[in-house]
C-alpha cells in the first residue's frame, strides 16, 4: 500500500520538502555508499541514534552488539539519524511519503517554519523511541519519525482529502483520515507487539511519537493566512460567501 499522490493542490513551491529529499539522497549516496555493505553499517553506527550511548549506565560489551561503544554521534545523532537509512526500500519509501504529504503541510506554514516543524517532529520521534527503550543498543536511523510528523499534520489539516493509494496494480482513492488513521493504528499495534522483542526492525514508537508530535506542532506552527484560501483545509469547505447568502432561504 503506497501513496502515490493526492487530490490536494500544491500552492507554493515546497522548497524545504525538496531540500530535505535532496539531503537524504546526498547522505545515502555519499555517507552510506548507496547501501553497500561496510559503508552502510559504518554509517548507521556513526550517524544513527543509539539510546544506550546516551542513557545506559551498564557496561557495553561491544562484541555482542551491532555497534561498538562510543562509535555513535552522541546527541548529534538525534539530528543526523534523521537523514540516514538502512536500505534502498527504506529511503525510497520514506521519500515517497514525504513527497506526497510534505508539500501540502509546507503550504500550511511556509518553508522556514516547515523546516523547524520537520526537525521538531524528528525530535518527538527520537524521544518516543528512546522512552520505549532507553537502554537499547540498536542504532535508529531513518526519516520516518519526522515524516510521521508530516503525516500527523496532514491528518489534522486535510482529513478529507483523497490520497491515491497503489495497492498491487490498482489505484484507490481514500480519504487521508482513513489512510493515515490505518497507518497510525498499524504503528501502535506494531509498537506494542515489538515491546517483547529485542531484535531490530521498524522503530514503531518513533513513528507514533513523530505522528503525535506533528499533529500537535501543526496547530502551533500553521499559518491561517496561508491556509485561508486552501480549498481542502479542514472539514468545512467554505462556499464563496456570496453563494451561501444568495440561496433564497438565506436572503432577507
Amino acid at each position: 500500500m503506497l501513496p502515490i499522490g493526492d487530490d490536494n493542490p500544491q500552492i507554493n513551491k515546497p522548497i524545504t520538502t525538496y531540500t530535505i529529499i535532496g539531503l537524504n539522497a546526498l547522505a545515502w549516496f555519499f555517507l552510506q555508499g548507496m547501501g553497500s555493505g561496510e559503508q552502510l553499517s559504518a554509517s548507521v553506527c556513526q550517524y544513527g541514534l543509539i539510546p544506550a550511548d546516551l542513557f545506559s549506565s551498564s557496561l557495553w560489551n561491544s562484541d555482542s552488539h551491532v555497534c561498538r561503544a562510543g562509535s555513535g554521534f552522541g546527541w548529534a545523532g538525534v539530528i543526523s539519524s534523521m537523514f540516514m537509512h538502512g536500505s534502498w526500500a527504506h529511503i525510497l519509501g520514506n521519500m515517497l511519503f514525504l513527497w506526497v504529504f510534505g508539500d501540502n503541510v509546507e503550504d500550511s506554514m511556509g518553508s522556514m517554519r516547515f523546516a523547524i516543524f520537520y526537525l521538531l517532529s524528528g525530535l518527538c520521534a527520537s524521544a518516543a523511541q528512546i522512552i520505549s527503550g532507553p537502554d537499547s543498543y540498536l542504532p535508529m536511523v531513518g526519516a520516518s519519525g519526522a515524516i510521521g510528523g508530516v503525516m500527523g499534520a496532514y491528518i489534522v489539516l486535510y482529513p478529507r482529502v483523497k490520497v491515491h493509494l497503489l495497492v498491487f496494480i490498482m489505484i484507490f482513492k481514500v480519504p487521508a483520515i482513513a489512510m493515515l488513521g490505518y497507518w497510525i493504528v498499524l504503528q501502535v499495534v506494531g509498537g506494542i507487539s515489538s515491546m517483547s522483542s529485542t531484535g531490530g526492525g521498524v522503530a514503531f514508537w518513533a513513528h507514533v511519537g513523530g505522528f503525535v508530535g506533528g499533529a500537535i506542532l501543526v496547530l502551533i506552527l500553521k499559518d491561517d493566512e496561508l491556509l485561508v484560501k486552501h480549498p481542502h483545509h479542514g472539514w468545512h469547505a467554505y462556499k464563496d460567501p456570496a453563494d451561501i447568502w444568495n440561496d433564497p432561504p438565506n436572503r432577507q
Partner: protein
Amino acid sequence: MPELRAMCLGDLSKVLKIIHTHDEDDAEAAESDYQEEGFENQFVLEVDDKVIGVTGYTEVPATDATCWLSWTYLDKTFRGQGLGKGMVKDLLDKLHSRNCRKLFVKVSDYEDPEDGKIYQTAYKMYESLGFKEEVVSLDFYDEGENQHILGLSLSDFFHYDAEEEIEIIDEKPVIRFDGLHEIAETEGAYTFTWIVKDSKKLFGKRNFTVLDLKIGLESVKNNGGRKIFLTFPSNLPLIHDPLQKAGFKYVGCLADYYEQGVDEFHFTHDLTNI
C-alpha cells in the same frame, strides 16, 4: 447667489428649525449629533445672507476615503428650484477635492399620515445625481419603515477611472462581540458591537460562534428588541458559518465600502425562534 459655506455655532438654531419643519425627531437627533461631533465638514447653504439649507459629510474611520452624507435638508419654501440638488453638487465638488472615493446616504421611506412620503423628493434627487440603491433594510426604523442606503462613486460622478482593483486577501481575524445597543433613530432595532482580538495560535481565542450569537439574540429579545442588524467586511470567510446557523439573513452589501473590492455585508435577524 446661493453659496455653500462652512457651518458654525451661530447657524445651529436656524439649521435645527429647517430640519424641524420636515421631521421633529430628526431635528432632535441632529441637535445631539452636532453637540457631540461639532461642525467639522458640515455646511450651510446661504442665499442673500439667509441660511436655507444644510448638508455635510462624515468620514468613515478605517476605510479608504468613504463618507456618509450628514443631515441634508432644504427650507421648504425654497423647494422646486433645484437648490437642494445644487447644494449636494457643491458638496460633491468639495468631496472630490478632498479625495473622497465613495459617498453613501441613508433614506427612510417613512409615510406620514398627513404629509405622505416625506423623503421621496430627496430620494429622487439623489437618484438623479447618480446615487444607486445598494441595501434596503426592511423594518429598520420601525415596523413598516425601511432604510434605503444609496451609494455614489465619485469616479462615476466626475467621470474619472476608479482605482484599479487590487487582489483582496481574505482575512481570519478573531472577532468577538463586546456589547449590544439600540441603533439611534430606530424603535427596537439593535446591533452588536464587535472587536478584533489578538489571535493566539496555541490555546487561542476563537472567532465568535453560533452560541455567542444566540446569547446576543436572547439579550436583545429580553430588552424588548425587534430586529438585529449586523455589518461586516466582505473578506472575512469565518463569519458566514455561525451567522447562517444562528438564522441571520443576508440583506445586501454596500459595494467597495472599506476599499475598492471590499464591500460591507449587511445581515439581519428578526428574532423568530429565539
